[in-house]
């Protein structure tokens, strides 16, 4: 157990250390979510005036709900890029060779992703609050949001990790990014689900991310949340992708790293 956690901490340390000592890696992770927030909350605020748009905490809070999840998910995907690069450049061999328990490698990368997501979402939150966002969450709602962020990041990271360990090349970047991008945008991004038109409405209705996004927005507005649906979905996604990631690790072992 001590051995396992020592390995995981080593992997996490490296991924955080590299991110925070290389501005070129850190800056996009910090700036992207801010960009989305500014563009959507600032540029589209008149959308909040549409008839039928009902959200008590304001359009900026509504968009914050989206950008928060997006930042968490992309924090996870970003880890996948790192894993793919490590395999492509051969550094992963050091991990595979040195870690008595290799599952600890995944846990380490995951801890790194959560660490990064914590920083980016905190910065996003501060900027949003300073620029006038006024959520109506209770302390319990905030705790719920933190959990939601962590689970979203975990699910996305494990998904990307599974892809990275199977394909082992940075060329796999789009294969990690695109699906996450798609499921995020095929949810009610700009307006509540009822106002989404056409085929996207149909897709958004069954998209599990819709539950997370709606749940997050309800927590931000201090409204009642169906915990079972929201957190159940998040945990199910994280669990499913954990299996996917572990099988990715087995595939990497089989084909030789």
């Amino acid at each position, binding site marked *: 157990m*001590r*051995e396992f956690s*020592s*390995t995981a*901490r*080593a*992997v996490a*340390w*490296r991924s955080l*250390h*590299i991110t925070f*000592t*290389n501005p070129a890696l850190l800056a996009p992770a910090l700036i992207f979510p801010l960009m989305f927030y500014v563009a959507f909350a600032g540029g589209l605020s008149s959308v909040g005036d549409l008839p039928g748009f009902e959200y008590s905490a304001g359009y900026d809070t509504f968009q914050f709900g989206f950008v928060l999840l997006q930042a968490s998910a992309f924090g996870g995907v970003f880890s996948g890029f790192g894993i793919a690069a490590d395999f492509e450049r*051969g*550094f*992963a*061999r*050091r*991990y*595979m*060779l*040195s*870690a*008595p*328990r*290799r599952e600890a490698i995944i846990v380490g990368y995951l801890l790194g992703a959560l660490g990064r997501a914590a920083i980016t979402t905190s910065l996003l939150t501060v900027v949003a609050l300073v620029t006038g966002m006024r959520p109506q969450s209770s302390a319990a709602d905030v705790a719920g949001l933190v959990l939601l962020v962590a689970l979203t990041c975990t699910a996305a990271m494990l998904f990307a990790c599974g892809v990275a360990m199977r394909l082992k090349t940075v060329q796999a970047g789009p294969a990690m990014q695109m699906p996450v991008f798609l499921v995020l945008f095929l949810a009610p991004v700009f307006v509540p689900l009822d106002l989404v038109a056409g085929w996207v409405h149909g897709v958004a209705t069954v998209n599990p991310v819709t539950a997370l996004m709606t749940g997050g927005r309800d927590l931000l507005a201090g409204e009642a949340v169906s915990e079972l649906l929201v957190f159940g979905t998040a945990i199910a996604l994280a669990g499913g992708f954990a299996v996917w990631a572990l099988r990715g690790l087995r595939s990497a*072992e*089989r084909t*030789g*790293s």
Partner: protein
Amino acid sequence: MAPASGIEVENLQRTFKDLTAVDGISFAIEPGEIFGFLGPNGAGKSTTVLMLTTLLPPSGGRASVAGFDVATEGPDVRRHIGAALQEAALDPLLTGREHLRLQASLQGLAKQTRDARTVELLERVGLTDAADRRVGGYSGGMKRRLDLALALVHGPSILFLDEPTTGLDPQSRSDLWEEVSRLARDEGVTVFLTTQYLEEADQLADRIAIISRGSIVAEGTPDALKGEIGRPSLEVVPSDAADRERLAQVLSEFGPATAAPTGAAAVRLEAGADGLAQVVRRLDAEGIGLNTFDLHAPTLDDVFLAKTGERLADEAVA
């Protein structure tokens, strides 16, 4: 069951699609032994190392390292081994010291011992001054030395070195030889070392296996191999240069001629060193005066040639 820090390999095999990289090899390595795995490019050396270090599952056969099966007891194997692979896995963005700390933590070394171990190993591989520079700026030799230090962090009882001296200058190469011998002698570390250099295997290894196209073609101590296969060659310079032709004529009775410098004649002695007295008598009888008379012991290259019918590609060993 292999002894605690030995290696036992039985009919080990690895195929890639329809290419058989390692074709049923078997050998056993005793604890504390330096085992040289000698072969040309593409012979299957690295593939063997990857299988023994649990980085690549075998397609057939079995192998145990430190008493644990490489296919089914990977975690236990990894606890006991250290490896410096052919391509050093280093991160250009981390410093040498950071690599050592990372490695110590990866292997679960206790926090208190990490720093001391880092300092000690940096010193031992001569990287103390460069310790806080990013590895991206290291020379090839420095990277290899760092890789070796990383392999030693947790004090493994078995060490795998895949072509550790390729790309090193002569000084660094003999330093590394010195360090490897010391590890085996003083710390009882078992060393599995691959190389394309005959001289390296000869100098360093207690025992050698020669691998060619995935199969082991010869195995034994360097001396036994040379004795078994290679015959010594004799190089003679006549005191009167005009005698050279006649000298060569006489020598050819004892075996095939081999290349010799101008003014000399050389022959590979079919009867080995035992035939020497005979040669001297014949030359005396012919009245050929001798200036120099040198017996060259057989080399591993002779062994390699005899076993595979080919020469090792790289003979330019300093």
